[in-house]
């Protein structure tokens, strides 16, 4: 059990972060806080990918004359990092769209409190 925690503690923390974000999205009443939660969820997923690429004693994927090409194990897998660049762009765009919608909601109803919005949209 202790070994499991020691070996994978980063993943456990990231799952916890995911759940905190989920809590924010589902339970919080203010739409702005829901967006915070959404952002936390996205960040935790991105960090999860990055963590999955981690290798002990390995370095960035740039040819280092000191290490050479003999042992590719000494380099990290660069794929998750590059993929996550795309995911970060997606996350930023999602934030942009959600802020645009929030502005439209505030203009229409003058509040961002969900129960009050549900009352006014009835």
């Amino acid at each position, binding site marked *: 059990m202790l070994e499991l925690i020691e070996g994978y503690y980063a993943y456990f923390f990231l799952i916890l972060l*995911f759940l905190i974000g*989920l809590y924010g*999205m589902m339970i919080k009443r203010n*739409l702005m806080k*829901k*967006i915070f939660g*959404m952002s936390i*969820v*996205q960040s935790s*997923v991105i960090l*999860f*990918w990055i963590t*999955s690429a981690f290798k002990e004693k390995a370095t960035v994927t740039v040819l280092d004359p000191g290490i050479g090409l003999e042992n590719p194990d000494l380099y990290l897998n660069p*794929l*998750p990092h590059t*993929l996550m660049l*795309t*995911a970060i762009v*997606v996350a930023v*765009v*999602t934030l942009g*769209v*959600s802020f*645009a*919608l*929030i502005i*439209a*909601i505030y203009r*229409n*109803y003058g509040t961002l409190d969900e129960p009050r*919005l549900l009352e006014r*949209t009835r």
Partner: protein
Amino acid sequence: MNSIQIPLLIPVTFLFASLLTPLAGLLGRSWAHLVSLAGAVFVFFLSLKGLGAALTEGPLRYHVSGWLPPMGIEFVLDPLAGFLEVIITGMTVLVLIYARKSVEIENPDKAVPFYTLTMLLMTGLSGMVITGDLFNLYVFLEISALAGYALLAIGGKRAPFSAFRYLTLGTLGAGFYLMGLVFLFMTTGTLNMADMSRMLPLVNGSFTVTTGLILIILGAGLKMGLFPLHTWLPEAYTNASSAATSLIAPVGTKVAAYILIRMLIISGFPPLIELLTWVAAVGIIAASILAIAQSDIKRMLAYSSVANIGYIALGITLANPLAFIGAMLHILNHALMKAVLFFAAGGIFNKMGTRDIFQLRGLPKKMPFTAGAMLIAVFSMVGIPPTGGFFSKIYLIFGAIEAGTWFFVAVILISTLLNFVYFFRVIQTSFFKPYETAGTPDDDVKYESMEMDEMSPGMLVPTLIISVVIILVGLFNGAIVDKVIIPGHPWFSG
């Protein structure tokens, strides 16, 4: 033109159309419409050609910038993808014809953004269908979703709020998908679909893979509006403009269902999907009952969409050939029926000024063609023989019988009765109420003075075309199944 480039051209044409549409919009709204329509028609013919080529020569594969599959991104147009592609692009063409007048009436100042977002949405959806790379799928998923949020936010005063709720849940769905994908990537080290399906049997039963698959299925379920995760769907569909709803309702959720099909094919139908079959069955019944409780026609149709997504999920997860054919045929049929019904609902709202199904008295007198098209769609929805809906349901029932699960046979039959209840209310008020004596005198005067006021030809023609296609699909369903669905079937094509 070389047919090998078709897989790339399909999403790229939409992408270029989405860039050209706002530029054309500077000249005028009708130019923007023309450009987007031209793009959609072009892609529709491309997908027809691609489907034909895929059926005769086998799957078309395009390797982006020449990088070979396990490393690079590949676009694959196999018969299954081609079938979906033809459905969604064909729908887009008809919806764009309809949208010209509908947007003009409902949101004239939002016309150019509407066409631009439609093209962007289709970039995402057609890319999702055609891609052979799991991360690429995520990118296309987000492109289509972001365009979809903005598209559904065009509408009444309430539309931005319901679009926001869709945004939070949709982003969560994409988050689940990406989270699940990292588990699969950690285990197999590949993102290519074909490569993944070769790798997964080697690590079958691994806890990591199971967790990843559950997360991915959860994400796909959120996107397709499968029953307990459907809460965003009725609100978003009800409050958006009728053109946006009639585009997203037939097309959007089907493509999410296609992700589910792909993932299940890749993972070789793991045993945990039996649970999903039960969820789908509960969803069919519950959503049908919720649909009966609605009086707003668009909201009722939205709940009916949730129920029909349940049929598709049921057909896929029963995991036998007949049920699979039923599910694929139902994707086609449901796209057609929902388009007609939402087209009709939009036209009725414009002409009669109401969406309350109990106020539809005299609909056949005022809008005879709309009423006729709606009647065909309702018959197909309930499953009355010459229409397409009957055949997809019969395949689903045969599939359930073959799987030996009589409970699901009962679910399909009961839900057919429930369908009958909620659609018959519409038919009863609009067709038969005039002959009853129950109407108040005021109401009778209104009915007597009603004159024929059909929706404009631009909106009527696509509605009638689809309703004719519904009957044609019913008559020629044997040919569609033999020539298109069976070659695209994972048990036959390997």
